[in-house]
Each structure stands twice: as C-alpha cells, then as structure tokens.
C-alpha cells in the first residue's frame, strides 16, 4: 500500500553499476548503502556487477584477519528488500577466472552487449 506522502507515484528504473573490488576502497560499501536507501523509496532497482565489481559477491569472504567489517552478507539480504534484479557481466567473470558457482547470490549472467542494452534502458544510473 502506498501513501501520498512518500511517493509521487512515479517509479523509475534505477541501476547501480558496481565496478570496484571490496575492501581496497570504500566504493563498494558506499554503493551498497545507496542501494539500501533506494529500497525505501519503492523504486525499480537493478544492480550490475562489472569489472572488479564482480569480486564484491565472491563467496567465502572472511575479514577477521584484516579487522574490517565483512559487508558481503548484506548482498544476500537484498531480496528481503525486494531487490532481486542482479546482473553480472560474463566477460568480467572470465577475465578473473571466477565461475558462476563462486558467487554468493543468485544472479543473471549476461554478456557485455546485453549489459550495454540493459544500462541504456535505465532512467537513473549510479556508478561506483
């Protein structure tokens, strides 16, 4: 049920393009924060993982040794916020020797041409 106070009734297609590896820089965590915020506004949210961004959802992350917060379980919680449109670029996986079975969440693996078309179909694109 939507209310007038939090919605103009316009639902836009949002895409967050993840291009950075986790932990080495703050980009991955910051984009994840934006994703969670956008979930509160009932928008049509899409996540893309390309280039080093595919490393964000690599299985088995254990940050105890580096004393940083392991934020990777948050990706598994996204479906609880109705964020289920996750896309991974096949070429990015191949370049890094990462298999679909190495990923911690259900995703749709698409090739670069399909990714190009998907990004082009969005209303709002935020990259990090």
């Amino acid at each position, binding site marked *: 049920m939507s209310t007038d106070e939090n919605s103009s009734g316009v639902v836009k297609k949002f895409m967050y393009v993840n291009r*950075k*590896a*986790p*932990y*080495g*820089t703050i980009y991955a965590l910051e984009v994840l924060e934006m994703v969670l915020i956008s979930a509160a506004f009932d928008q049509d949210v899409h996540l893309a993982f390309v*280039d*080093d961004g595919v*490393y964000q959802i*690599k*299985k*088995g*992350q*254990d*940050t*105890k*040794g*580096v004393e*940083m917060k*392991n934020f*990777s379980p948050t990706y598994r919680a996204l479906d609880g916020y109705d964020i289920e449109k996750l896309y991974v670029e096949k070429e990015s996986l191949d*370049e*890094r*020797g*990462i298999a679909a079975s*190495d990923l911690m969440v259900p995703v749709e693996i698409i090739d670069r041409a399909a990714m190009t078309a998907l990004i082009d179909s969005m209303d709002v694109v935020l990259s990090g």
Partner: protein
Amino acid sequence: MLHTVNKSPFERNALDACLTRAAKGSAILLYEDAVYAATKGTNVASRVSQATQAFKVFVLGPDLRARGFDEAQVLDGITVIGYDEFVDLTVEHGTVNAWL
C-alpha cells in the same frame, strides 16, 4: 629491495609498472586489491607466473581471505605470508618501493 603493490591489476597498471622495473631477484609483495593478481585463472595469471621466475613473489594471506580466496587458489611459485612476515620482509630488505 622489497616492492609492494596494493592495486588490482585489472584497474591500475601498478603491478605492470613494478614488474617491468624491479631488478631481478627482488622481493615483491602483493597486498590489498593486488592479491587478485596472485589468484589462478585470471587474464594476468601467466604474466604473474612468469614473474615468479625472476622475483620472489609474496601475497598477504589476511587480504586474500578477506576477498574470499585461500591458499589453494594462489598461483604456484607465490608464497602466502602473514603480517609478521610482512614486517620481516621490510626489515630484511631495508628499502621498500611502494608502487601505489
């Protein structure tokens, strides 16, 4: 000399800059996002494997595990070390060249 690299080889050219300029027999430590260069099956794996012939190559274990990789996924010829050995390497080599 100890050379350190902490950038992903897919995003920056720091590793390449290091490999093309480090003197033969140097030690090279891959840490933070450079640990991806030490993993098997990547586009840069053959280049890195070749480098283990000319250099002593190390990778920092805690950074590797944070990113979801373990020793079994590290290229042959690369030694996985911890923070204590990182300290030992810096002491042993005196000069550190950080390729940022």
